[in-house]
């Protein structure tokens, strides 16, 4: 187990390093730079060049890269080229919108997926089961943006229950309003992700239903449904955790789109804005933090899985 964790940990670090190089290089492909943007449309090429030099954008790529990654190893995510503000601090600030949004989305996804997934499995072959499956299939195929717009139309425009966009200026000091403004976006991601997860729960449940221990329980006199719920579902739980880990990546991607749509001041919106202003050091660090987050979730899920599931240990 320890050896596995070490190998898996080394892989995680290697993955991060490779990602950092990829992030660094791909961002260099963008046309335009922040120096030109700061200088504006009245600046001469020499002035822009002077600015570029003072910002350190003239230095060789290798030096720029090692500086950046060196800072990260010391826990310094760098400073914004435009504002001179600490990237780490701003990420922390924006995370106060994005993290609650992610958690709410995940909870909604689970609340939808688990009961309906199991129900769909139990009702397999019956009309209700088919309807649930088709519904999940359809919802999972819906683009997040469209789902968001539909929810805005229904809950904000028609019913007037929830704000269509924005986050209270006062932030979490008015928790009620903060939660209110996150509900629709979380619902949007949660429904789409939940529909995808539901299909997985359904098939995992069905698979469990076919397992020997469930059949044994049924043979001992439990109804098929009860056998499934009492013995099958707990076994399914583990694989759901794995899929949830993957789901986190989907929620992060979803939040970039959703924060744009609902004008939420979170990490996704910050990322889009920073790409727009070519604040590359900031974008690099933000992307690396997000990549790192997804990789770490994967790492933890793998370890947990291995620690819990005896079959995997034997296979190793």
């Amino acid at each position: 187990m320890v050896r596995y964790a070490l190998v898996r940990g080394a892989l995680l670090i290697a993955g991060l390093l490779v990602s950092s190089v990829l992030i660094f290089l791909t961002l260099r492909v963008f046309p335009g730079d922040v120096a030109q943007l700061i200088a504006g449309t009245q600046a001469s090429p020499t002035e822009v060049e002077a600015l570029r030099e003072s910002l350190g954008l003239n230095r060789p790529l290798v030096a720029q890269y090692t500086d950046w990654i060196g800072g990260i190893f010391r826990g310094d995510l760098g400073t914004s080229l435009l504002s001179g503000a600490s990237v780490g601090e701003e990420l922390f600030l924006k995370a106060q919108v994005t993290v609650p949004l992610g958690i709410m989305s995940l909870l909604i996804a689970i609340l939808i997926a688990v009961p309906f997934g199991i129900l769909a499995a139990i009702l397999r072959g019956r009309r209700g089961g088919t309807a649930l499956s088709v519904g999940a299939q359809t919802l999972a195929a819906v683009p997040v943006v469209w789902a968001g717009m539909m929810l805005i139309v229904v809950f904000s425009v028609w019913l007037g229950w929830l704000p269509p966009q924005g986050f209270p200026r006062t932030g979490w000091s008015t928790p009620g309003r903060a939660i209110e403004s996150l509900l629709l976006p979380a619902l949007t991601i949660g429904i789409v992700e939940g529909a995808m997860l539901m299909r997985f729960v359904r098939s995992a449940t069905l698979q469990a239903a076919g397992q020997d221990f469930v059949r044994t329980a049924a043979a001992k006199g439990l109804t098929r449904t009860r056998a499934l719920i009492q013995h099958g579902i707990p076994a399914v739980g583990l694989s759901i955790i794995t899929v949830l880990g993957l789901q986190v990546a989907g929620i992060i991607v979803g939040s970039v789109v959703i924060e744009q749509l609902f004008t939420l001041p979170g990490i996704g919106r910050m990322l889009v804005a920073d790409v727009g202003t070519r604040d590359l050091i900031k974008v690099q660090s933000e992307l690396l933090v997000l990549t790192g987050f997804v990789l770490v979730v994967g790492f933890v899920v793998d370890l947990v899985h291995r620690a819990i599931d005896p079959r995997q240990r034997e296979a190793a």
Partner: protein
Amino acid sequence: MLRRTRRLALISALAAAAVVLSACSGTPDQAPSTSPGKPDPDATLHVGLVLEPSNLDIRHTSGAAIEQILIDNIYEGLVTRTQENEIEGRLASDYEVSEDGLTYTFTLNDGILFHDGTALTSADVVASYETVRTDATVQGNAEFAAVESVTAPDATTVEITLSEPNQNFLFALTGPAGLVFKKGDKTDLKTAENGTGPFTLTRWNKGSTITFARNDDYWGEKAGVAEVEFQYIPDFTAGVNAAIAGDVDVLTAVDPNLASQLEGDFTLTKGRTTDKATLAFNNKKAPLDDVRVREALRLAIDHDALIEAVGAGTTLYGPIPELDPGYEDLSDVVPYDPEKAKELLAEAGQEDLELTLTIPTFYGTTVPKVLISDFEKVGVTLDVDSVEFPAWLEDVYTNHDYDLSFVLHVEPRDFGNFANPDYYFGYDNAEVQDLYSQAQAEVDPDKSAELLAQAARLVSEDHAADWLYNGETITAVSPIVSGFPEDSINSRINLAGVTVSAEK
């Protein structure tokens, strides 16, 4: 070629563009519903703005968003400019320009204090301007290119000598270049300040609000409100909602589309600006190097209809807007005439012309749509290439790789771009360049303006570009507020004379 202003055009352009670029009919000005009550000296003024500065270091960062709130309120220069873009003394009670236009003598007002309590002397002015002159990373360095020396004959006098007369120099001093900072100050200007203005900075809640408090030790007339809170609301609908909900007393840069929602509760003012919505022609690239093609394109545009579609703005047929010296009504140069446009295109052998318009994404689709349909009527197919602003800067501005381009040029007095053959317009006319340098060197402002007007007419007659409209900015002001400036507020909001009454 002098580059007088260096500011982040993106920011101001964005704000101004978003204000005017949306299809709707004009909004009628609204008379105040009630007359303002008695001013409350303890009141807080809440102002809604669109674009927040990226930092507050006005010495090193360009951008209308910074200048808009900091100049005159927090920091002051020897001179400043009025809403009409006219120059007047500020820290200087008096100034004199020598006959040859080379020596500027300023006399400082009495009792000026920095916010930390230190008295301002001419030595602070000399130190500030020496920095601008010698440090290339400081805003306005290029504008000080002709400055030979800055000296202080005594504690209240500052003398600046130029190597050659420069009609624009005094105007440059109204911008970031002219601001006076304390000599040897160690304040971190990115987040704090030590100015001399009627307000002090109390708090900056990044991404949300900036708060000013009245400076009770101000050397001049004290501000009319105890506190000002700027709320940054990047979304236009959210801004209008905030105004309706009573969160802001003044909303700047109101989207013309949404203005009608504020009628009744607010007075809507339409302010003049120096924003020139410029349809640039690549004068160096075929077929736009042919003046007949350029003229045809201008004749094909129905400017009045375009302004109606945009929702705000006035016509502008030349490179100089009304608020700048040298303005002249040039509408006679290109009356709307699609038939003549077709003839000119035929004459130039360009009957099946296909052109690309490169436009930054934040300007929306109203202008391109109108242009496509106007050009179609004269047989020109317009492809629209909507790109991110940094990509626009690289392709169009730096590499000059474009046919037609659209950008809102917001800087005042930027006519020099048409006298610079290396500017992205690629317009090269020796006569214009000559007139412009004469205008710069001319000591008499009226004569200088006259020369500029001549040059501007030449540029328009050469159809170096088309000026689609002169931008207007809509401001919604609550009846409890009085004295809020109307014109040029996308570059300056002078709050000293604003008051708020306790009740409606």
